[in-house]
């Protein structure tokens, strides 16, 4: 029986960020989804075909039928229903052949897409197109209200409106709305209009000769309006964004920021999608400093897109004019304390078993001195993917790369690296899977004169891996899962690299110093996977527990001089335990620690814990504890809850335990009204306290898919 596996879908909108595993999981308490019996509302297309086949049911006070003219005339609070579409009005004339309908007087047409109200409606039941005089349209999908003298539905999802208004606010006098001489709205598409006014309440606030808005429903891409705030570093801040939709596939946001301490900031974010896949976003922000402070700017360009001939070009570039740019202009942790800024341009193409990719990579160190920073301008790799040799158990692969390493001061040079490798897939007694691999890494160097000049060195590496897997399927009686499988995978790996002197080689990266290795690493992975049948009967799988234990035994370390009493041999590495526990969709516990058997008092070399709980209704808590001996002891906790609806609260606290330092406290309050949101952000961090108030219209999305604020916040 070839049941297609239940396609795992993100569970009720709960993004599992850690160790992402999209698994359809029944919320523990959720009763069997009550079958709502409501007719499944299909999208416009199919419902129109069904409309043609579906009977037309008429109820009225009077019904006249004229065969000659081929129409019916119903009068007296007439109700015509056909499948999901129902029409109410004082008088209706229907021609069953042509399916033309003319309704007059208190017309209300309700269908899966929305509700039309007006004085007079001429429409064709078959095509669903029609004209509404003096009426309004409510589009369910986007919660959009369109009103106007004349509304025509000219396409399946396209309405034109004369002297119309449009908003996503419910109610008679909406909090905001647009009016335009003529407006064309396509559901899930764009609203285009000429001579448009934007009203806040009843007050016209903005005029624009031409507007074009993406009309999307997702909440988080609301249209940013203005914002103001204060921060110790930036002083008073007033930011007025102006959103301009250039075309269907391009839009831009201009920012004008007045920062009392730092000067006038001018920014542009330009988003584009060309053809199907060439998408990207470019950002430029320039601050003309005040009081003698120099100008500063930041440029960013993210792009992913195919070129003719199967080549793919990507850019993930960022450049800032001064090292302290982000300290002043970064807003969230990870932005304002960035330690480096990378720019990567790549061009690549893949054939069946070969990948050719080149990259230009430039990193700017924001903390240390930049002259020593090593750049790869370019690095080109040609890799032959691991592939079977005929029907044998042997496979081969080849990695080859040519890199030009550059830095302002210090050794520059080229490196050609080749690593062919041969491996085999054997099975021992049909129990153990054995995979030996032997490779040879050859490196050739040409360096600048202050380097060693031409150098060459190659060395072997050998590794073999033995693994197997045993599992058992339990049929637990009481639990809500039908079957639970526990699988254990022992895995032993032996690695050997001969000891070769490579001191005369230039040291660009770790491939120039392949250190000797004679090591056994062994591990055990336990998985507990539950299975039950999803709503449509197809099986749904969920991994409740993943537990990996691993350790290494260094033979080189164990054979060091036996006679030297002070020589503490430490062949055993620390025991690493990784555990991911997911009792249900909303809860996660991720534990990752290294335990040192012979490390005296401080047994743990690292101890990391991440816990998260989300109830799927907007409440949640996430806490992460990081510990690395003598390096880091740090806590990052986030709290989200919506108990005081319509106010949604998001609180984040970051704390350095090693030196008892408050690093950051940030409180985000969102007052979410029906069609707009007001955000208040309070932040107290190292060297800056700030607050920010932002106003946003809901339902008007932006074109761009690659989101992120200036600097691509995390």
């Amino acid at each position, binding site marked *: 029986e070839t049941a297609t596996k239940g396609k795992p879908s993100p569970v009720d909108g709960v993004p599992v960020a850690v160790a*992402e595993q999209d698994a359809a999981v029944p919320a523990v308490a959720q009763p069997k989804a009550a079958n709502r019996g409501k007719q499944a509302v299909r999208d416009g297309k199919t419902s129109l075909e069904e409309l043609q086949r579906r009977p037309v049911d008429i109820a009225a006070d009077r019904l006249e039928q004229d065969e000659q003219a081929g129409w019916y005339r119903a009068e007296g609070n007439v109700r015509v229903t056909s499948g999901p579409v129902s029409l109410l009005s004082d008088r209706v004339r229907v021609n069953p052949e042509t399916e033309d309908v003319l309704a007059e007087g208190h017309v209300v047409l309700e269908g899966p897409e929305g509700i039309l109200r007006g004085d007079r409606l001429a429409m064709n039941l078959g095509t669903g197109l029609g004209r509404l005089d003096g009426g309004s349209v409510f589009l369910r999908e986007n919660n959009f209200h369109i009103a106007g003298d004349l509304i025509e539905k000219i396409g399946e999802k396209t309405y034109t409106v004369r002297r119309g208004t449009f908003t996503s606010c419910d109610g008679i006098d909406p909090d905001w709305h647009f009016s335009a001489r003529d407006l064309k709205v396509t559901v899930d598409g764009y609203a285009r209009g000429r001579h448009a006014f934007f009203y806040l309440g009843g007050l016209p606030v903005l005029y624009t000769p031409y507007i074009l808005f993406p009309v999307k429903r997702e909440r988080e891409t609301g249209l940013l309006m203005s914002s103001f705030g204060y921060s110790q570093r930036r002083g008073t801040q007033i930011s007025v964004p102006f959103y301009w939709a250039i075309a269907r596939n391009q839009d831009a946001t201009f920012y004008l920021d007045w920062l009392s301490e730092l000067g006038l900031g001018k920014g542009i974010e330009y988003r584009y999608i060309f053809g199907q896949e060439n998408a990207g976003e470019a950002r430029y922000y320039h601050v003309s400093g005040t009081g003698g402070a120099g100008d500063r700017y930041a440029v960013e360009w993210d792009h992913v897109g195919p070129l003719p001939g199967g080549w793919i070009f990507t850019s993930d570039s960022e450049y800032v004019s001064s090292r302290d740019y982000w300290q002043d202009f970064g807003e969230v942790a990870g932005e304002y304390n960035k330690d480096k800024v990378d720019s990567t341009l790549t061009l*690549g193409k893949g054939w069946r078993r070969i990948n050719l990719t080149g990259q230009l990579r430039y990193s700017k160190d924001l903390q240390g001195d930049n002259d020593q920073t090593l750049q790869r301008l370019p690095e080109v790799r040609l890799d032959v993917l691991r592939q079977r040799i005929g029907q044998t158990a042997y496979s081969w692969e080849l990695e080859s790369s040519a890199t030009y390493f550059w830095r302002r001061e210090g050794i520059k040079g080229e490196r050609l690296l080749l690593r062919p490798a041969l491996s085999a897939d054997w099975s021992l007694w049909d129990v153990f899977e054995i995979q030996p691999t032997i490779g040879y890494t050859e490196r050739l160097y040409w360096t600048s004169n202050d380097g060693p000049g031409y150098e060459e060195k190659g060395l072997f590496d050998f590794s073999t891996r033995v693994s197997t897997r*045993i*599992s058992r399927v339990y049929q637990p009686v009481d639990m809500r899962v039908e*079957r639970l499988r526990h699988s254990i995978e022992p895995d032993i790996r032996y690695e050997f690299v001969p000891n070769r002197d490579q001191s005369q080689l230039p040291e660009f990266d770790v491939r120039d110093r392949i250190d000797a290795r004679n090591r056994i690493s062994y591990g055990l992975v336990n998985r507990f996977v539950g299975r039950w049948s999803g709503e449509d009967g197809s099986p749904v799988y969920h991994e409740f527990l993943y537990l990996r234990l691993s350790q290494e035994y260094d033979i080189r370390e164990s054979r060091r001089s036996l006679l030297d009493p002070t020589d503490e041999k430490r062949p055993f590495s620390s025991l690493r335990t990784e555990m991911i526990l997911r009792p249900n969709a909303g809860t996660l516990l991720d534990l990752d620690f290294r335990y040192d058997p012979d490390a005296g008092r401080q047994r743990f070399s690292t101890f990391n814990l991440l816990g998260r709980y989300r109830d799927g209704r907007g409440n949640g808590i996430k806490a992460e504890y990081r510990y690395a001996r003598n*390096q880091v002891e740090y806590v990052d906790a986030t709290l989200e809850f919506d108990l005081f609806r319509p106010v949604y609260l998001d609180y984040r606290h970051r704390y350095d335990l090693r030196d008892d330092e408050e690093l950051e406290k940030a409180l985000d309050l969102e007052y979410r009204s029906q069609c707009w949101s007001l955000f208040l952000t309070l932040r107290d961090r190292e060297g800056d306290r700030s607050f920010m108030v932002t106003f946003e219209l809901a339902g008007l999305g932006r074109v761009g898919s690659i989101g992120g604020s200036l600097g691509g916040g995390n």
Partner: protein
Amino acid sequence: CGYRLAGQGTSLPGGVKSLYIASFANKTAEPFLDTAISNALSRRFNRSRNLRVVAEENQAEAVLSGAVVGYSSRPLSYDRQDRVREYRSKMKVEGRLTSVSDGRILWQGSVGWQEDYAASDNLALQEDRERAAVEVLVERLADELYYRLMDDF
């Protein structure tokens, strides 16, 4: 004790026994991830005893194809001056198993994993650590993809 060698009873969706692994694409702006994940998948799937990985698409009952759809490496923890001490690399891979005979999708899903590494004042060393983290990521993702496919119990 009821624990049996994996192989009896578990199989790919649709009872598929022979498989061709197409080379995975890289839909991110981070270079070389396509080679890394394709090689890791080849190592993982070829190791399996109860599965025949073939070299040519036409000899297989099903094709496993997919792409790296997300990669990020972002600051994770900080010291007393709020300077970055550790980074977290995250990768997400989407995979799809399609039957060769009728093109039906036998399985489709995505797997994600993360690995952390220490920051360093020496950027070159920090990038070496990131590359080491990527090597662990592709290996774990190959395992995850393998087990999600072999989940058919």
